[in-house]
C-alpha cells in the first residue's frame, strides 16, 4: 500500500514538473514571438508635440556662445539628442549619434541638449565625449517644449520644420529607426506593422482623424 502511494507521488511530481516546464516554454515562445514580430524601434511616448505637426521653434544660446535654432525651415534635418552628464546610457549612445551624424552629414545636423545644472560640468562632459564640434545647449525650456521624460531621448525635425519622429533611444537601432521613420513616412515600426497588416482599419482610422 505504502509503496503504491510513494510511487504515485513520484509520478505526480514528474507530471507537475513536466507541465510546469511546458507552460514556461509556451510563455517563452510568446516572448520570442514578440521579439520577432516587432523589431524594437525607438520607444515612442505620447507626450509632447505630435509627429507630423510643426515642431516648436526656439532660438537658444549654445554652451560655447553660438545660437541653435530649433524648428523652422533649414537646409537639412535636425536631430536633437537629449542627454545628461549623469545618465550612463547616454554615454554609450553619444558615439553612436556621432557616427550616425557623420554617415548622414549631407542631410542631418546633430545637436545635443541637456537640462540645467552647472555649466562647467556640461563643458567637461562635452570635452569627455569629444562633441565640441556639435552645438550643445543647456536649456530647461527645450526639454519642456518637447516634453522629454526619460533620457536619452531624440527628436528629429525635418528641413521643413515638421517634427518627423521622436522617442526614447537606447541603441543604434533605435536612433536609426528615427531616421528611417522620416524617410519612410511611417511614424513608428508599430505604425508600419499596423498599416501593413490591416490596411482597411488604418484607412478608416485616418479618415476619423481628418
Amino acid at each position, binding site marked *: 500500500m505504502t509503496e503504491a502511494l*510513494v510511487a504515485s*507521488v*513520484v509520478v505526480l*511530481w*514528474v507530471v*507537475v*514538473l513536466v507541465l*510546469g*516546464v511546458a*507552460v*514556461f516554454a509556451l*510563455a*517563452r515562445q*510568446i*516572448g520570442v514571438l*514578440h521579439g520577432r514580430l*516587432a523589431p524594437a524601434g525607438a*520607444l*515612442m*511616448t*505620447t507626450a509632447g508635440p505630435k509627429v507630423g505637426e510643426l515642431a516648436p521653434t526656439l532660438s537658444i544660446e549654445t554652451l560655447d556662445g553660438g545660437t541653435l535654432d530649433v524648428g523652422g525651415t533649414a537646409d537639412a534635418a535636425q536631430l536633437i539628442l537629449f542627454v545628461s552628464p*549623469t*545618465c*550612463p*546610457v547616454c*554615454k*554609450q549612445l553619444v558615439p553612436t549619434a556621432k557616427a550616425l551624424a557623420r554617415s548622414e552629414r549631407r542631410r542631418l545636423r546633430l545637436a545635443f541638449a541637456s537640462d540645467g545644472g552647472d555649466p562647467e560640468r556640461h563643458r567637461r562632459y562635452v570635452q569627455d565625449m569629444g562633441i565640441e564640434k556639435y552645438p550643445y545647449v543647456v536649456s530647461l525650456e527645450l526639454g519642456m517644449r518637447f516634453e522629454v*521624460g*526619460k533620457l536619452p531621448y531624440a527628436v528629429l525635425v525635418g528641413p521643413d520644420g515638421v517634427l518627423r519622429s521622436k522617442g526614447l533611444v537606447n541603441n543604434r537601432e533605435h536612433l536609426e529607426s528615427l531616421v528611417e521613420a522620416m524617410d519612410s513616412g511611417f511614424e*513608428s515600426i*508599430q*505604425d508600419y506593422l*499596423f498599416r501593413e497588416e490591416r490596411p482597411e482599419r488604418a484607412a478608416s482610422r485616418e479618415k476619423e482623424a481628418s
Partner: protein
Amino acid sequence: MIDVLLQLILAAALALLFAAAALHKWRSGPFFEAQLAEYRLLPEALVPVAARALALLELALALGLLVPATRPLAGAAAAGLLALYGGAIAVNLVRGRDWIDCGCGDTPVLLTPWLLLRNGVLVLGALLVALPARARPLGWTDLLLGVPALLVLVVAWALVEQLLENASVLREWSQARD
C-alpha cells in the same frame, strides 16, 4: 513551529534567486546603475556605490541562507530587502513613473502592481525561513519531496518573470498604437 524541510526548500530557492540577481547586477554594471538612478530615490553621487552594495548584499544573503547558523538572520534580512524593493516600486507607481524599467533583469519590465504581489509572496517566503523550525532527522522521503518542490519553485519563478516580460511588451505595443 514550522517543519525544517519547508524552510530548507524555501531557503535554497531564495538563495538561488539572490545569487542569480547578484550576478546579474554585478555583470550589467552601468546599466543597472542607470536603472537604479531612474527610481529617483537616491542622490546621484550615491547611485554607483549603492548598485555595487546591493549586488554584494544579495550575494551575502544567498550564502547566508545556505548556512544553517545564519539562516534565520539571512531570512529576516532577505525579507527586509525584498520589502525595500517593493517599497521603491510602490513609491514610483504612486509618483506615476510606471514607465521605468524595474531593473529585474536584462529584458526591460515596466513597473506594474503585479511586481508588488510578486515581492509580497517572496517576503512571506523569506519570513518563513526566519521563523524557528522544529529540528528533526531528515530521511530519504524528505529528499523525494524536497528536490521536486525546489525544482517546481524555480520553474514557477522563471514562468512569473517571463509572463511579466510578455505583459510589459504588450503594454508598450498598445501604448504605441493609442
